[in-house]
């Protein structure tokens, strides 16, 4: 039974995907793309209404019949109100999401309700099982993140998300598909030793100086969110100047290169895990770094953005067969 339902849902999803094509974001949920079906509780209600009408007919009770029809009519109206709860909702989605193998990737949504009426219990779903239920007050916007489980490294392309609601009475479920090319970059799970070992990371440029902690203060640069607070220039901040971070230059004056090729003892995935760990550690230590993968080189860049680029490169890396 459940398998049947899943198969039906899958067919409907693919059919809706073909029907609507790729949506431009932000998307306004229109009439033609809202689907609605009774829920289990709604089906029970249907049986109950039929029983009520039969009883009313049988007892020849006009009031009983009237009440039965009132219930039927409430159900029909609830269907319209359920539909209304999605209609005209505006949705925007962050098309790139980052996660790590074994954890989850937060997919960012913005729901904008520019009507006066509040919208209750809107379910936002991505993939299987990842969902968030939220409410958007009248004339308000709501930001939310749906945590998509990401068990394995790689690039996950979600073509579709689902917005659904069962409000007001839980007897109907209205839903709509948003066809958006969401790319989820799943970086490898960090693993291996914690800091770039001299032998691997120094590869050439840093071969002579294996010490850490002798970095020189190089100056201040503007603060951007994501930089570890320990690098914040507290003194300048205390003087009322804009937040800045102290930047350091490695004593040797050159950045660290993190290289795939420099980890010959490990399997392909283990190398990626190790590189991931080093990227995170370098980032935390404020150590400029570059990444070299077979066929790809990411030169030293700004902290923060550079990390994202590196992790995405790790996620997208395709192993050579037999490597």
């Amino acid at each position, binding site marked *: 039974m459940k398998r049947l339902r899943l198969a039906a849902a899958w067919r409907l999803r693919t059919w809706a995907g073909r029907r609507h094509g790729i949506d431009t974001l932000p998307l306004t949920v229109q009439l033609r793309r809202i689907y609605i079906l009774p829920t289990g509780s709604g089906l029970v209600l249907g049986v109950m209404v039929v029983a009520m009408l039969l009883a009313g007919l049988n*007892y020849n009770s006009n009031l009983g019949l009237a009440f039965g029809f009132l219930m039927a009519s409430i159900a029909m109206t609830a269907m319209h109100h359920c539909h209304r709860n999605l209609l005209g909702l505006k949705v925007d989605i962050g098309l790139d999401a980052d996660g790590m193998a074994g954890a989850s990737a937060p997919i960012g949504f913005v729901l904008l309700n520019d009507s006066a009426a509040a919208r209750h219990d809107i379910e936002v779903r991505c993939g299987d099982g990842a969902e968030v239920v939220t409410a958007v007050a009248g004339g308000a916007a709501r930001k939310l993140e749906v945590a998509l489980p990401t068990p394995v490294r790689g690039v996950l392309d979600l073509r579709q998300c689902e917005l659904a609601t069962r409000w007001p009475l839980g007897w109907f479920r209205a839903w709509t598909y948003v066809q958006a090319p969401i790319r989820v970059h799943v970086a490898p799970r960090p693993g291996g030793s914690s800091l770039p070992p001299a032998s691997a990371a120094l590869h050439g440029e840093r071969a002579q100086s294996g010490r850490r902690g002798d970095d020189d203060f190089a100056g201040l640069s503007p603060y951007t969110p994501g930089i570890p607070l320990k690098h914040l220039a507290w003194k300048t901040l205390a003087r009322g100047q804009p937040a800045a971070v102290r930047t350091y230059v490695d004593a040797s004056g050159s950045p660290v290169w993190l290289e795939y090729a420099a980890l010959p003892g490990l399997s392909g995935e283990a190398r990626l895990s190790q590189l991931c760990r080093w990227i995170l550690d370098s980032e935390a230590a404020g150590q400029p770094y570059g990444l070299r993968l077979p066929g790809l080189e990411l030169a030293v860049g700004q902290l923060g953005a550079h990390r994202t680029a590196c992790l995405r490169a790790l996620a997208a890396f395709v192993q050579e067969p037999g490597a």
Partner: protein
Amino acid sequence: MSDGTVTVQRLGWAVGCLVLATAANLEALPVWVPVAALLAGSVRLALAVLGRGAPPKTLTLLAAVAAIATLLLRFHTFNGITAGTSLLCLMAGLKLLETQRTRDIRVIVMIVYFLALAALLRSESFWLLAYLIGVCWLATATLMQLTVAEPGPGWRGALRASARLLLHALPLALFLWLLFPRLTEPLWSVAEDSGAATTGLSDTMDPGDISKLVLSDDIAFRVHFTGAVPPPRQRYWRGPVLEEFTGRIWRRSERARPGSDAQAPLPVTAPAYTYTIGLEPYQQHWIYALDRAVRWDLPHARLSDTGVLERSDPVSQPLDVTMTSVAGGVIPEAPDRNRQRRALQLPPGSNPRTAALAQRLRAQHPEARDFVAAVLGMLHTEAFFYTLTPPRLGDNPVDDFLFDSKRGFCGHYASAFAVIMRAAGIPARVVTGYLGGNENPYGDYWIVRQSDAHAWVEVWFEGGGWLRIDPTAAIASARVETQQRDDGATAMLGVTLRGRGSWLADLALRVDALRQIWRERILQFDQSAQQSLLERLDIPAPDAGKLALLVGIAISLVFGWLSWQVRRDVSPASRDALVRAYAGLCRRLAGAGLPRAVHEGAEDYAERIARARPDLAAGIRGLLRRYSDLRYGAAATDSPAARALARDLQAFRAPQQR
């Protein structure tokens, strides 16, 4: 979807709805059922307040088994309204006890809906319907509060949304109710609950019985005459005919049970009256009619051998019958030795003084008509009193009444008169029914109440049939023309409610007129009423296909209306008061020579105005600053701040510059 949690508030709403729905069913439930359900509800609610969950499963299971077993012992079935309602009520209580998820609350709300229906199946009161629609409103609001996401609608919001839902649902419900085909026969028969207490005449008469009825202001039936209204002295509504006398009590003879010796309707002879009688339930088989019904529209009804219309099912629901009666004080009948012998039966040795009196009088008046006149004359001239509180009578009640107490009311006079006739060898029988009725000036119909209950006598005349004689009328014959016992009884009881002219009586009549409309238009709405309604809409001969088409059209119309309503709800902010107020301000400023450019945002516009009109600068800057903050911020558009700003925007004026 993950389910919401069961909070004290949600439980409280469910318990409240359940209590209200059960209250509407109280009279049908054995006392322990609502008590048990209430107990279960309070236990669960107390646990919730203490922050504990539901009691252990085994406990609830045991309670369920015990409850169902007790119900089965009591009713032996779950078919029928009482048993079914009890079961529902207990189930709801037990469900409440084990409520752990919001799904359980949904089940309870479903039961609440069903309990509301059960109450409506048993009653026909307008107020009950209104009350139960109220319960339905609360139950629906309970469902609306079972949201997962915060903030939920809150109880105020839920009540508002639920009211809107109900209002939106009413038109469709009305269409469906009007157009849905009705059955003429029930689908299956159900155990009829006959425990309901009813007032009205029974098939025996102890003379004392009627005095209790006379005190009741309940309505027995309403009558609408088409055409002529019979004069007061012909308004005798015949009920059961009592032929068997025990010496004290009059009974219907067993042979007069329905179906025996049924007669075909007679041809109409003048004077005939056509009327519709709207009977309130009284759990008996006979149908009241003016003297002798000759035509009726009631299936399966037949005339009994005593000329009373009867049917096999008791009147257990309000019933409308349209019929034609011949009312002239005579029930024509061919001579039948057996029946006449029955109408002469007297228990041997009872009431000897009465028998002696009868024989003496009969010797003086051998002609039956003279004899009847003589007995009536005796009642008229001797000191007989009409009273509702007669003294107690002994073993020979007729003797005691005629010779000692000489005080009684219609039952006593009818009984005594019939005994005298029988003792003198003239076949006679007692008839009970109603006499008179009051016209409701606010509706074209008459009201006959239990207080109009009456007993009189029918006497057999060779060649004539059964002639109606009302011995009570002989006491004060003038009183039969105007409601005799009416004046007597109410004056004695000091009841002035029904006296004409009192505003209270007037109000009571108006309310009854409304009730009659409710009854005729709503409760009695059936296949033929449906047909005449459709004919008035120029849809002749509606069959199932046409009805289905009409229902389809009605549903699409209502759905169109609903979608429009709903679309209006979600149409973006152009209807928003703030935006409207801003547009109004822009219009006024344009009138003052400062139109807003299409591309211009509120603050840019304010700056330009400030440059052009330094006198307005401070005001307009602050106002439009607030506007852009609110409009593009995250605050809800119906916040108090937004409303205040909308007012300020509306109030802002740009005076013409000199």
